[in-house]
């Protein structure tokens, strides 16, 4: 029963997103459009593009994941269903975790699927693309988990959208460093295992710590 609420909340959010399919696709569209701007700004030389590709893809993924955060709890907060969820006897931690999972499925997963296409556009080598995708698989859940804390803290605030960026982006810098760093290691002929392990460690840490923090933030914001 207690673990059921986790899947239930995640499933409900996914079903709601399925009713508005185009809206659910917006983050990944943003991801591709934003990343495509860089060659236009920097210039089309393949050498430079290959060098900046991992950083560009990771930064755009970071921004795309943040973009949809302010809707994570907002509609449930507006119609009062969030309050009912918190009043129920189910664990707030699991509810927050379910929300984060839904956010990852809706934004993280499409980003992972779209990233190889961008890698090809930026003329990346195939092994570098593989490591970039591996890094994104480990890193994007961290972004969703950290983001759920930010979304819970800024619930219902006027300046919510920009504020989330200011709160969450500094905290997600390690993810960016290790994610882009892993690809850089491949490019210079070294093993990316260390960077990927550190990303995995960040994922484990945020899996344990972020849902309770998001639950506490929800209690602060709604009470």
């Amino acid at each position: 029963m207690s673990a059921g609420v986790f899947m239930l909340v995640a499933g409900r959010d996914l079903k709601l997103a399925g009713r508005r399919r185009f809206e659910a696709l917006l983050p990944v569209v943003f991801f591709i459009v934003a990343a495509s701007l860089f060659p236009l700004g920097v210039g089309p030389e393949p050498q430079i593009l290959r060098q900046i590709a991992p950083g560009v893809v990771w930064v755009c993924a970071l921004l795309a994941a943040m973009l949809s955060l302010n809707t994570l709890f907002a509609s449930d907060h507006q119609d009062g269903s969030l309050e009912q969820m918190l009043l129920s006897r189910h664990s707030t931690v699991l509810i927050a975790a379910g929300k984060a999972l839904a956010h990852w499925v809706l934004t993280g997963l499409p980003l992972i699927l779209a990233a190889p296409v961008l890698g090809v556009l930026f003329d990346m080598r195939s092994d570098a693309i593989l490591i970039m995708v591996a890094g994104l698989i480990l890193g994007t859940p961290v972004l969703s988990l950290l983001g759920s804390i930010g979304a819970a803290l800024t619930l219902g605030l006027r300046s919510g959208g920009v504020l989330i960026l200011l709160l969450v982006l500094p905290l997600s810098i390690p993810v960016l460093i290790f994610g882009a760093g892993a690809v850089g290691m491949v490019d210079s002929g070294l093993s990316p295992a260390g960077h990927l392990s550190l990303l995995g460690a960040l994922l484990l840490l945020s899996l344990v710590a972020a849902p309770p923090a998001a639950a506490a933030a929800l209690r602060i914001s709604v009470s």
Partner: protein
Amino acid sequence: MSRSIRLFTFAAPSRFYWLTGKLLPWLWATAALSAIAGLYMGFFVAPTDATQGDAYRIIFVHVPAAWMSMLLYLVMAGWAVFGWAANARLASMVARALAPTGAMFTFLALWTGALWGKPTWGTWWVWDARLTSELILLFLYLGYMALVESIDDVRRADHAGALLALIGAINVPVIYFSVKWWNTLHQGATISMTAAPKMAATMLNAMLLMTVAFWAYSFAVVFMRTRAIVLERERQAQWVIDMALKAQEASK
């Protein structure tokens, strides 16, 4: 009423207001005197550095400011979390009062670092581990201040800020080490508690005097800001009303 002082005597805003009112002149005097002494020692007494010339003298502002910037974040997070966990109003007010001072010292450390970097490294800014993590620390301060300012409900603002400060404090070592592995150029720490200091005694004394000055300044300015917050939040309390009436009488 017994006059004995207990551990939480000054946790009552009215008594805190009274006590800090007595302390403030002394704190300001300490800050001013040690700053004058430290700056004099640093700029006129301390010898010129063999390799860096006179440019190194910015160290007397830069290093204490960097120390304060990191210390104040931890102190802020500590008071904020204590205020949240123990529901201690004054602790939350102190945490809020600390943030702008901490951000100011972070900015000062970055700015003086740039002034020092230009003559010694030949560039205003490098993306080195310590500089970058100091910049991220500034972002953390700004995030805390922005969050706390944009929530109207005082209680929610205090508690949300406490949670954010706590997450930030846990993240600071993670950020520091990740940035460190990413890139490093900054010179290692010159002063450590375990090894003998690698600098002339006058330089060390000047730096310690400046540190005392920055500590006293921080206490003074944080107390002043806390007093303002106390008055704002306790404006319905009888002691504030009485004080305001008395001040009004005196001004007539």
